[in-house]
């Protein structure tokens, strides 16, 4: 039977507004986001599968709460192109490119080739002044990484909110780069279902997609 008892991890949705809120006061808190970045990868690398997505992902829970219980989602099917493999992997590659560009900018600031940019870049395009959230005190590269990382976290949360409102509450999960990465790791660990012939998904009786 379904276990309806609430666990401590069912309240992790609170982490999303706290994390984004802290970034308004001091951008250096953005470094905490490395937890959300490393933990899913470590869990899947060390055999925990997609436990992070399935149980601990604060953003997934946050979108589920807003779109589900608070009924802010239109609950329409996610568009076919958005759930295609091409889009999922394409978005992962795009995400990687932008992430390494952010690391490159951090390196340039660290080597004094560029000044610290005290802004948050939304949707990889729009520079939003964010100088109030940094009072100095850290090495320039540390602050630059915080601004860059916070930009990624805020942008991806906003994209998640937009697709939550337009489609299903957790439509973001379909193309979430962390989800795609961890699933790839799990696929490598589990062996390809195509090779073993069976992913034990019960889909076979309706015409197996892996056959």
């Amino acid at each position, binding site marked *: *039977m*379904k*276990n309806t008892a609430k666990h401590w991890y069912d309240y992790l949705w609170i982490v999303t507004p706290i994390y984004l809120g802290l970034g308004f006061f001091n951008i250096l808190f953005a470094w905490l986001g490395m937890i959300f970045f490393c933990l899913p990868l470590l869990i*899947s690398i060390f055999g*925990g*599968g*997609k*436990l992070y*997505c*399935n*149980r601990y992902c604060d953003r*997934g829970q946050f979108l*589920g709460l807003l779109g589900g219980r608070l009924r802010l989602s239109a*609950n329409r*099917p*996610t568009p*076919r192109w958005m*759930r*295609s*493999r091409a889009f*999922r992997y394409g978005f992962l590659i795009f995400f990687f490119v932008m992430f390494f560009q952010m690391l490159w900018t951090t390196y340039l600031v660290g080597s004094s080739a560029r000044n610290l940019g005290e802004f948050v870049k939304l949707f990889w395009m729009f520079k939003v002044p964010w100088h109030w959230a940094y009072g100095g005190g850290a090495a320039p590269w540390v602050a630059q990484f915080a601004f860059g990382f916070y930009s990624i976290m805020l942008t991806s949360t906003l994209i998640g909110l937009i697709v939550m409102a337009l*489609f*299903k*509450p*957790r*439509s*973001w*999960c*379909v193309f979430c780069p962390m*989800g*795609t990465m*961890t*699933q790839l*790791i*799990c*696929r490598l*660990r*589990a062996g390809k*279902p195509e090779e073993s012939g069976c*992913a*034990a*998904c*019960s*889909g*076979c*009786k*309706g*015409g197996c*997609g*892996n056959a």
Partner: protein
Amino acid sequence: MASKRYAAVGRDCVACGCCVKVCPKGAISVWRGVIARVDSELCIGCGKCERECPAGVITFVQRGSAE
């Protein structure tokens, strides 16, 4: 009495686990982080997982049709 249909998961499942949370029978689990799988014996074909699934990979199989 067994339900007339049960859920089946397509290969483009993203293993997000949304279906696991809404299943009233605990019939769904995520197999090694790769794909959701349905225990067809437990599934009552209620359709909650299909409504929840953001990847739209859940379909239904009529019992007795292909067994």
